[in-house]
């Protein structure tokens, strides 16, 4: 083990984070050196948190240096634990009680229009993510976290899953590529994660490995809740094997495509028009539909151009996708607005749902619109369209009472 270890971030641009140095000393007890932006308000509080953690991990003699830029307690706890566990061999964890809001589960076919990526080692982006109301937040352990921060980020993500109120958004984590990502699972599976994104997925075997590990952890902790998977197809091989991936396990809920890596893999340039990825995107949609799961599009990386984002969404929706990733909260309302049913879709759904209710009221077994028979799946889809429109405030919840005549 090391004698001295670090965790966290410091520097001019850093806010709401802290950097902790733990050095094992030979004598003198536990010494705390605290530099904090919020010292006047929380000095006692922070010192107590540090000394409690040191005692918890059995540190008897150490120097702990804290450079705090206004970190919330869950951040300090994560940084402390990461640093201490680099100098003390232990499996013990400091776990605060999980918020009741963070123990909810989600349905397999839950709406997933938008999912907001949050870099897993940057806590300041976590705190208000939920207020922007994306369908899901993704605590990212993969590409947005540099190699030397991967270990630290796991503790931060774990604590966030338990303690940051995401106000009802689906709680997702993107783990690292398999096999490295398998180790991430220990830090997220016991902490009420709803959905795990499996990046650069290229085989059904990878999905089975993930599930095997999840099941082991579940068994160990006696966990019952559902954990969904969203494999991300990001390579030519992944596109070819998309169907085996989509059907690898019953908890695969969505299939996403990641275009940045995919275009590099096929040696093409990623363009705004996206001709180079047309085949792959269509393949993902087709495979997902064949497997009965959601096809989800890649992120749109120009966060300042809302018009281009809108065009991109309309193309995406036109291809059959049901959602996309976002990297800035401003993209969320645009994504919701444009993935939501448009006027024509809504009018059609209203007609079908009205016909359905009429048939029910009259005790008819068959729903028909004019001379056309309406199949049950069509009715089901129309009901879903109506519900999405209500959820996104495009339709009044009591629309049926208020409608004039249709």
């Amino acid at each position, binding site marked *: 083990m090391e004698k001295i270890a670090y965790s966290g971030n410091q520097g001019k641009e850093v*806010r*709401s984070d802290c950097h902790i140095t733990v050095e094992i000393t030979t004598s003198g007890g536990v010494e705390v050196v605290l530099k904090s932006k*919020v010292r006047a*308000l929380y000095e006692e509080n922070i010192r107590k948190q540090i000394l409690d953690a040191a005692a918890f991990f059995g540190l008897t003699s150490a120097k702990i240096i804290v450079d705090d830029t206004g*970190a919330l307690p869950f951040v300090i706890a994560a940084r402390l634990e990461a640093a201490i566990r680099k100098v003390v061999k232990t499996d013990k964890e400091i776990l605060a009680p999980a918020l009741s809001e963070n123990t909810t589960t989600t349905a397999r076919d839950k709406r997933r229009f938008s999912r907001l990526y949050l870099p897993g080692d940057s806590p300041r982006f976590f*705190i208000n993510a939920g207020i922007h109301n994306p369908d899901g937040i993704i605590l990212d352990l993969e590409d947005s976290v540099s190699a030397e921060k991967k270990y630290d980020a796991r503790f931060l993500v774990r604590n966030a899953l338990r303690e940051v*109120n995401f106000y009802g958004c689906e709680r997702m984590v993107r783990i690292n590529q398999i096999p490295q990502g398998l180790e991430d699972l220990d830090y997220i599976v016991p902490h009420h994660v709803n959905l795990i994104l499996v990046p650069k997925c290229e085989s059904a075997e990878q999905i089975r490995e993930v599930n095997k590990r999840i099941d082991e952890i579940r068994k160990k902790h006696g966990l019952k809740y559902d954990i969904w998977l969203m494999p991300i197809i990001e390579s030519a091989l992944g596109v070819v094997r998309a169907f085996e991936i989509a059907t690898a396990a019953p908890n695969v809920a969505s299939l996403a495509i990641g275009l940045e890596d995919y275009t590099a893999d096929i040696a093409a340039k990623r363009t705004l028009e996206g001709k180079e990825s047309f085949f792959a995107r269509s393949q993902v949609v087709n495979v997902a539909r064949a497997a009965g799961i959601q096809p989800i599009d890649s992120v749109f990386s120009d966060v300042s151009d809302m018009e281009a984002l809108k065009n991109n969404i309309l193309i995406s929706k036109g291809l059959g996708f049901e959602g996309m990733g976002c990297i800035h909260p*401003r993209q969320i309302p645009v994504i919701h607005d444009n993935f939501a049913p448009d006027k024509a879709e809504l009018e059609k759904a209203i007609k079908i749902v009205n016909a359905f209710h009429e048939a029910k009221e009259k005790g008819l077994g068959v729903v028909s619109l004019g001379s056309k028979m309406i199949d049950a799946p069509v009715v089901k889809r129309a009901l879903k369209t109506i519900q999405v429109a209500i959820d996104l405030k495009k339709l009044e919840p009591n629309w049926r009472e208020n409608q004039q005549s249709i």
Partner: protein
Amino acid sequence: MEKHSKEFKVNAAGKNVPFRINGNELIPYMGVGKYKPTGRRYGPPLSSCADFPADGNKLVPNLKEALIRSGLRDGMTISTHHHFRNGDLIANQIFDIAHELGIKDLVWFPSASFPCHDPLIKYLEDGTINRIEGSMNGPLGKFTSEGKMKGVGVLRSHGGRYQAVQDGEVIIDIAVIAAPISDTFGNSNGVNGAAACGLLGFALADSQYAHKVVVVTDTLVPFPCIPWQIQGNYVDYVVKVDQVGLSEKIVSGTTNVTKSPDRLYIAELTAQFCDAAGLVQDGFSFQAGAGGTALSIGIYFDQIMRDRNIKARFIRAGSNKYPVKMLEDGYVDYILDGQTFDLEGVRSMRENPGHVNTSPFTSYNYHGKGNFASMVDIAILGATEVDIQFNANVVTHSDGYLLHGIGGWQNCIASKCTILPIPLFRDRIPVVRENVTTLCGPGELIDVIVTERGIAINPLRQDLIEKVKGTGIPLKTIEQLLDEAQRICGKPTDPKFTDEVVAVVKWVDGTVIDTIYKLDK
């Protein structure tokens, strides 16, 4: 002279107020509208045309000469205005000269201070300046909070500054009015010249009531300098310098719409609240601040007006390109402007009769026969802290340091609906508190707190609560917001102070609403 009396009285807000500071007796705050002044307005000494050149030429060679001729001596009160904001080149020169002349114990009476005034700390240290009555921002505030200022600072609102001068509570010995353009008689304005800053309204009281008035400019025009926002008939001396202000720093950095998604969210929620409460209607009025969030709210209002083809009667500004565009597109009849924040604001004020320059007399003076702050429908303001009585603080931070001036804030909360859009916490610092560190505005005047985690309406405003019920506006009680802030951040401890008074905060009527103490190190 003792800095302050050891005896204190308790004011109507329950705060201790020293009997005396700087040798002057204080009146404790009595409640909103309770203190009624008696007596007459202050009158500066009379003058005679016989003592001034018939050709109107009041030029003297330099600022030093003007100050000497004005009788500069120990203990005098020297006033300046802040229309040049961080580009002011004159205030520091006054005290350089005073220092050179070995003059001591001056009182600096600015309408606001900026980072460019930090060099004055050396004169506060060596006794050239005894104290600041005005605003103590940034390092000046820190200096004050650490008990290093010789006298006790006095914080006043823009309206309170006018009131103090008019009432004779502050007697200005020498007013130095930096002006972008002037004639040799002293007629001057802010809309023209290299350092154009729009208007000179904050210097109005200084010109009217100071014993001696010096105008300093870098652009002289032959008589008459039109418009004469400052009237030469009040002016004793005119000084021409090479440069009166740094134009690029006069234009404030706070004229950009916020890009922070969290602040944009709060802005959007604020606009939605105003709309749901029926406040955005044809002929309404609002105060548009210069901060990123306030600007964004103005833009949301603009959008609502355009969508519904309605217009506002007036905007109370801090103007910049956004209200100017609304004025030029016909979505508002008038901009009643207290200060211009960018060159578009300056241009508009120069060209457009609908863009009106105002002073703290017309907008804010509480000892007048009314003022228009109370006629504004919606005022959107900031705060460093708000407590569960809706009391707010704008001058100190939660760590006890004095860091900001009051500006027009206390005056603006007289509006029909005062809204504070604020984050529930900044980093780990809760903005909603059990008690504010310093009381600047009584809760009864603050109607709505908008945070990213919900909106709290003052229970005194049942009318507003009724209006937004069932509209989807996320209402919470202030106690719920406090609870949420403390659950996220932890319960903070209060800063520790000594019993040494370093500054007092005046209410708009000249009474003392709270006292600021030296920090315990």
